[in-house]
Protein backbone atom coordinates (compact mmCIF):
# COMPACT_ATOMS: atom_id res chain seq x y z
CA UNK A 1 0.00 0.00 0.00
CA UNK A 2 2.75 2.39 0.89
CA UNK A 3 4.23 2.38 -2.65
CA UNK A 4 0.84 3.23 -4.15
CA UNK A 5 0.34 5.74 -1.36
CA UNK A 6 3.67 7.46 -1.95
CA UNK A 7 3.01 7.37 -5.68
CA UNK A 8 -0.36 9.08 -5.37
CA UNK A 9 1.04 11.58 -2.84
CA UNK A 10 3.94 12.53 -5.09
CA UNK A 11 1.48 12.73 -8.00
CA UNK A 12 -0.71 15.04 -5.92
CA UNK A 13 2.24 17.25 -5.02
CA UNK A 14 3.16 17.58 -8.67
CA UNK A 15 -0.40 17.99 -9.84
CA UNK A 16 -1.03 20.79 -7.41
CA UNK A 17 1.56 22.94 -9.08
CA UNK A 18 -0.53 23.54 -12.20
CA UNK A 19 -3.93 25.00 -11.23
CA UNK A 20 -5.71 26.47 -14.28
CA UNK A 21 -7.92 29.49 -13.69
CA UNK A 22 -11.32 30.10 -15.32
CA UNK A 23 -13.33 33.28 -14.75
CA UNK A 24 -17.14 33.35 -14.66
CA UNK A 25 -18.62 36.84 -14.79
CA UNK A 26 -21.98 36.54 -13.05
CA UNK A 27 -23.14 40.04 -13.96
CA UNK A 28 -20.26 42.00 -12.41
CA UNK A 29 -19.42 45.65 -13.11
CA UNK A 30 -16.08 44.38 -14.53
CA UNK A 31 -14.13 46.08 -11.77
CA UNK A 32 -13.13 42.73 -10.31
CA UNK A 33 -12.68 41.28 -13.81
CA UNK A 34 -10.05 43.90 -14.63
CA UNK A 35 -8.28 43.08 -11.38
CA UNK A 36 -8.39 39.35 -12.17
CA UNK A 37 -6.97 40.05 -15.60
CA UNK A 38 -4.09 42.05 -14.15
CA UNK A 39 -3.20 39.28 -11.74
CA UNK A 40 -2.43 37.00 -14.70
CA UNK A 41 -1.16 39.22 -17.46
CA UNK A 42 0.67 42.21 -16.07
CA UNK A 43 4.33 41.38 -15.38
CA UNK A 44 4.03 42.92 -11.88
CA UNK A 45 1.61 40.36 -10.43
CA UNK A 46 2.35 37.45 -12.79
CA UNK A 47 0.24 34.58 -11.43
CA UNK A 48 1.86 32.18 -13.88
CA UNK A 49 4.63 31.77 -11.32
CA UNK A 50 2.20 29.59 -9.35
CA UNK A 51 1.69 27.57 -12.54
CA UNK A 52 -1.67 29.19 -13.13
CA UNK A 53 -2.85 29.75 -16.66
CA UNK A 54 -6.07 31.29 -17.94
CA UNK A 55 -7.98 28.70 -19.93
CA UNK A 56 -10.71 29.47 -22.40
CA UNK A 57 -12.97 26.52 -21.73
CA UNK A 58 -14.75 25.43 -18.55
CA UNK A 59 -13.68 21.84 -19.25
CA UNK A 60 -10.05 22.74 -18.58
CA UNK A 61 -10.73 24.70 -15.37
CA UNK A 62 -9.47 23.88 -11.87
CA UNK A 63 -9.88 27.16 -9.96
CA UNK A 64 -13.04 29.09 -10.80
CA UNK A 65 -13.06 32.84 -10.12
CA UNK A 66 -16.63 34.12 -9.80
CA UNK A 67 -17.24 37.85 -9.99
CA UNK A 68 -20.53 39.72 -9.87
CA UNK A 69 -23.65 39.36 -7.71
CA UNK A 70 -25.31 36.58 -9.80
CA UNK A 71 -28.03 38.67 -11.41
CA UNK A 72 -31.37 36.93 -12.02
CA UNK A 73 -30.97 37.17 -15.77
CA UNK A 74 -27.80 35.12 -15.87
CA UNK A 75 -28.33 32.82 -12.91
CA UNK A 76 -29.25 29.60 -14.70
CA UNK A 77 -26.59 30.13 -17.36
CA UNK A 78 -23.92 30.41 -14.67
CA UNK A 79 -25.26 27.30 -12.93
CA UNK A 80 -25.09 25.39 -16.21
CA UNK A 81 -21.52 26.50 -16.98
CA UNK A 82 -20.48 25.68 -13.42
CA UNK A 83 -21.86 22.16 -13.85
CA UNK A 84 -19.69 21.71 -16.94
CA UNK A 85 -16.46 22.07 -14.99
CA UNK A 86 -14.93 18.68 -14.18
CA UNK A 87 -14.14 17.71 -10.56
CA UNK A 88 -11.84 18.35 -8.40
CA UNK A 89 -12.48 22.09 -8.65
CA UNK A 90 -12.22 25.03 -6.23
CA UNK A 91 -14.32 28.20 -6.36
CA UNK A 92 -13.09 31.64 -5.37
CA UNK A 93 -15.61 34.48 -4.98
CA UNK A 94 -13.77 37.64 -5.97
CA UNK A 95 -15.11 40.94 -4.65
CA UNK A 96 -17.93 41.53 -2.19
CA UNK A 97 -20.66 41.14 -4.81
CA UNK A 98 -20.62 37.34 -5.06
CA UNK A 99 -20.07 37.01 -1.30
CA UNK A 100 -22.96 39.15 -0.15
CA UNK A 101 -24.23 41.14 -3.10
CA UNK A 102 -22.23 44.23 -2.06
CA UNK A 103 -23.93 47.47 -3.03
CA UNK A 104 -26.71 45.57 -4.77
CA UNK A 105 -27.58 43.47 -1.74
CA UNK A 106 -31.29 44.16 -1.43
CA UNK A 107 -31.91 44.68 -5.16
CA UNK A 108 -34.85 42.69 -6.72
CA UNK A 109 -32.67 41.65 -9.70
CA UNK A 110 -29.85 40.08 -7.74
CA UNK A 111 -29.70 36.59 -6.22
CA UNK A 112 -27.20 37.92 -3.78
CA UNK A 113 -25.20 35.33 -2.00
CA UNK A 114 -23.62 33.10 -4.65
CA UNK A 115 -22.99 30.31 -2.21
CA UNK A 116 -26.73 29.69 -1.95
CA UNK A 117 -26.41 28.15 -5.41
CA UNK A 118 -22.74 27.21 -5.87
CA UNK A 119 -20.29 25.66 -3.39
CA UNK A 120 -17.82 28.52 -2.83
CA UNK A 121 -14.50 27.78 -1.10
CA UNK A 122 -12.59 31.05 -0.73
CA UNK A 123 -13.94 34.61 -0.43
CA UNK A 124 -11.83 37.59 -1.43
CA UNK A 125 -13.69 40.70 -0.23
CA UNK A 126 -12.93 44.05 -1.75
CA UNK A 127 -14.54 46.26 -4.32
CA UNK A 128 -12.45 45.46 -6.26
CA UNK A 129 -9.91 43.50 -4.20
CA UNK A 130 -6.25 44.27 -4.82
CA UNK A 131 -4.45 41.95 -7.26
CA UNK A 132 -2.29 40.77 -4.38
CA UNK A 133 -5.46 39.97 -2.43
CA UNK A 134 -6.70 37.92 -5.39
CA UNK A 135 -3.33 36.15 -5.56
CA UNK A 136 -3.61 35.45 -1.83
CA UNK A 137 -7.10 34.09 -2.41
CA UNK A 138 -5.82 31.90 -5.25
CA UNK A 139 -2.98 30.66 -3.02
CA UNK A 140 -5.52 29.67 -0.36
CA UNK A 141 -7.62 28.02 -3.05
CA UNK A 142 -4.58 26.02 -4.19
CA UNK A 143 -4.10 24.84 -0.61
CA UNK A 144 -7.72 23.64 -0.49
CA UNK A 145 -7.39 22.14 -3.96
CA UNK A 146 -4.38 20.10 -2.74
CA UNK A 147 -6.69 18.01 -0.56
CA UNK A 148 -9.23 17.47 -3.31
CA UNK A 149 -6.94 16.51 -6.24
Amino acid at each position, binding site marked *: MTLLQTLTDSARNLAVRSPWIYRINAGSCNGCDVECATTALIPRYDVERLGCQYCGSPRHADIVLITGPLTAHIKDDVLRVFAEIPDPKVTVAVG*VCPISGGIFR*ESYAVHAQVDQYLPVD*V*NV*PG*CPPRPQAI*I*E*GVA*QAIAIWRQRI
Partner: protein
Amino acid sequence: MNFLRIFARNLLRGPSTVPFPFGPAWTPARMRGRVQFKLSSCTGCRACEQVCAPGAIRFDKTPEGLRFMMWHNTCVFCGMCEFYCPTDAIHQSDDWHMAHAVGEKYGMAIREVIPYTACTGCGMKTLASAPNPIGVVPPFTPEEVEQQRNQCPACRKKALAERGTPS
Protein backbone atom coordinates in the same frame (compact mmCIF):
# COMPACT_ATOMS: atom_id res chain seq x y z
CA MET B 1 11.35 47.44 -34.64
CA ASN B 2 11.28 48.98 -31.20
CA PHE B 3 9.69 45.85 -29.73
CA LEU B 4 13.12 44.24 -30.03
CA ARG B 5 14.52 47.05 -27.93
CA ILE B 6 11.78 46.48 -25.38
CA PHE B 7 12.59 42.77 -25.28
CA ALA B 8 16.29 43.53 -24.79
CA ARG B 9 15.46 45.94 -21.97
CA ASN B 10 13.20 43.35 -20.30
CA LEU B 11 15.86 40.70 -20.54
CA LEU B 12 18.57 42.97 -19.18
CA ARG B 13 16.52 44.46 -16.35
CA GLY B 14 15.04 41.10 -15.40
CA PRO B 15 11.44 40.52 -14.38
CA SER B 16 9.64 43.27 -12.47
CA THR B 17 7.37 40.83 -10.67
CA VAL B 18 6.49 41.48 -7.06
CA PRO B 19 7.49 38.34 -5.09
CA PHE B 20 4.20 38.58 -3.19
CA PRO B 21 3.10 35.12 -2.17
CA PHE B 22 6.69 34.23 -1.39
CA GLY B 23 7.68 37.64 0.04
CA PRO B 24 6.14 40.77 1.59
CA ALA B 25 4.06 42.98 -0.67
CA TRP B 26 4.29 46.75 -0.86
CA THR B 27 1.20 48.58 0.25
CA PRO B 28 0.50 52.17 -0.75
CA ALA B 29 0.35 54.67 2.11
CA ARG B 30 -3.28 55.78 2.01
CA MET B 31 -4.60 52.32 1.11
CA ARG B 32 -8.31 52.04 2.11
CA GLY B 33 -8.26 48.57 3.58
CA ARG B 34 -9.96 46.86 6.51
CA VAL B 35 -12.22 49.06 8.73
CA GLN B 36 -11.21 49.32 12.40
CA PHE B 37 -13.50 50.49 15.23
CA LYS B 38 -12.33 52.19 18.41
CA LEU B 39 -15.08 51.53 20.96
CA SER B 40 -13.90 54.06 23.49
CA SER B 41 -14.33 57.08 21.25
CA CYS B 42 -17.63 56.04 19.67
CA THR B 43 -20.46 58.22 20.95
CA GLY B 44 -23.21 56.15 19.37
CA CYS B 45 -24.36 58.98 17.08
CA ARG B 46 -25.11 56.35 14.34
CA ALA B 47 -23.94 58.75 11.61
CA CYS B 48 -21.88 55.96 10.06
CA GLU B 49 -24.93 53.71 9.84
CA GLN B 50 -26.77 56.38 7.85
CA VAL B 51 -23.90 56.98 5.48
CA CYS B 52 -22.80 53.35 4.81
CA ALA B 53 -23.90 52.70 1.21
CA PRO B 54 -24.04 48.89 1.23
CA GLY B 55 -25.51 48.89 4.75
CA ALA B 56 -22.51 47.12 6.24
CA ILE B 57 -22.82 48.95 9.60
CA ARG B 58 -25.79 48.21 11.92
CA PHE B 59 -26.64 49.37 15.44
CA ASP B 60 -29.12 47.64 17.67
CA LYS B 61 -30.13 48.16 21.21
CA THR B 62 -29.25 45.49 23.67
CA PRO B 63 -29.83 45.46 27.42
CA GLU B 64 -26.15 46.08 28.19
CA GLY B 65 -25.68 48.82 25.65
CA LEU B 66 -25.83 49.92 22.01
CA ARG B 67 -24.29 47.19 19.81
CA PHE B 68 -22.23 48.22 16.81
CA MET B 69 -21.94 45.60 14.00
CA MET B 70 -19.89 45.91 10.86
CA TRP B 71 -19.62 43.06 8.23
CA HIS B 72 -16.45 43.27 6.15
CA ASN B 73 -17.92 41.06 3.42
CA THR B 74 -20.40 43.73 2.42
CA CYS B 75 -18.24 46.78 3.04
CA VAL B 76 -17.09 48.33 -0.24
CA PHE B 77 -14.27 50.23 1.47
CA CYS B 78 -15.58 53.60 0.30
CA GLY B 79 -14.36 55.33 3.44
CA MET B 80 -17.56 57.40 3.94
CA CYS B 81 -17.97 56.19 7.52
CA GLU B 82 -14.49 57.37 8.44
CA PHE B 83 -15.17 60.74 6.79
CA TYR B 84 -18.44 61.39 8.66
CA CYS B 85 -17.54 59.95 12.04
CA PRO B 86 -17.45 62.99 14.35
CA THR B 87 -15.19 61.36 16.88
CA ASP B 88 -13.11 59.31 14.29
CA ALA B 89 -14.07 56.10 16.06
CA ILE B 90 -13.98 54.30 12.64
CA HIS B 91 -10.71 54.22 10.82
CA GLN B 92 -9.77 52.38 7.59
CA SER B 93 -6.45 50.67 8.04
CA ASP B 94 -4.28 49.62 5.10
CA ASP B 95 -4.66 45.91 5.81
CA TRP B 96 -5.84 44.19 2.65
CA HIS B 97 -5.10 40.58 3.67
CA MET B 98 -8.82 39.78 3.91
CA ALA B 99 -9.03 36.64 1.73
CA HIS B 100 -10.61 33.95 3.94
CA ALA B 101 -12.10 30.50 3.65
CA VAL B 102 -15.87 30.39 3.37
CA GLY B 103 -16.09 28.99 6.89
CA GLU B 104 -15.21 32.33 8.49
CA LYS B 105 -17.54 34.21 6.18
CA TYR B 106 -19.57 35.61 9.04
CA GLY B 107 -16.49 35.80 11.23
CA MET B 108 -15.24 38.74 9.14
CA ALA B 109 -17.20 41.22 11.21
CA ILE B 110 -16.74 43.65 14.12
CA ARG B 111 -19.26 43.33 16.94
CA GLU B 112 -18.76 45.79 19.77
CA VAL B 113 -21.20 46.91 22.43
CA ILE B 114 -21.12 50.50 23.68
CA PRO B 115 -22.10 50.00 27.31
CA TYR B 116 -24.87 52.01 28.85
CA THR B 117 -23.93 53.94 31.98
CA ALA B 118 -26.29 55.16 34.66
CA CYS B 119 -27.09 58.84 34.25
CA THR B 120 -25.52 60.83 37.09
CA GLY B 121 -28.56 63.06 37.11
CA CYS B 122 -31.59 60.84 36.99
CA GLY B 123 -30.06 57.34 37.17
CA MET B 124 -31.45 56.35 33.64
CA LYS B 125 -29.37 54.21 31.25
CA THR B 126 -27.47 56.43 28.88
CA LEU B 127 -24.43 56.35 26.67
CA ALA B 128 -21.29 57.82 28.08
CA SER B 129 -20.75 60.03 25.14
CA ALA B 130 -19.31 63.47 25.35
CA PRO B 131 -21.73 66.19 24.35
CA ASN B 132 -21.00 68.09 21.26
CA PRO B 133 -22.45 71.50 21.88
CA ILE B 134 -22.53 73.59 18.84
CA GLY B 135 -23.36 77.22 18.84
CA VAL B 136 -23.46 77.40 22.63
CA VAL B 137 -22.47 80.83 23.94
CA PRO B 138 -20.34 80.87 26.02
CA PRO B 139 -18.76 77.59 24.86
CA PHE B 140 -18.49 74.71 27.31
CA THR B 141 -15.48 74.53 29.47
CA PRO B 142 -13.71 71.16 29.50
CA GLU B 143 -14.88 70.33 33.02
CA GLU B 144 -18.46 71.09 32.01
CA VAL B 145 -18.01 68.59 29.16
CA GLU B 146 -16.62 66.03 31.57
CA GLN B 147 -19.49 66.67 33.97
CA GLN B 148 -22.16 66.22 31.28
CA ARG B 149 -20.54 63.11 29.80
CA ASN B 150 -22.44 60.72 31.97
CA GLN B 151 -25.84 62.44 31.80
CA CYS B 152 -28.80 61.30 29.85
CA PRO B 153 -30.12 63.64 27.20
CA ALA B 154 -32.93 64.81 29.44
CA CYS B 155 -30.55 65.89 32.20
CA ARG B 156 -28.34 67.57 29.61
CA LYS B 157 -31.25 69.59 28.36
CA LYS B 158 -31.98 70.62 31.94
CA ALA B 159 -28.33 71.56 32.51
CA LEU B 160 -28.32 73.65 29.38
CA ALA B 161 -31.51 75.37 30.44
CA GLU B 162 -30.00 76.21 33.79
CA ARG B 163 -26.96 77.67 32.03
CA GLY B 164 -29.43 80.09 30.36
CA THR B 165 -28.28 79.56 26.88
CA PRO B 166 -30.60 78.65 24.07
CA SER B 167 -29.99 74.99 23.14
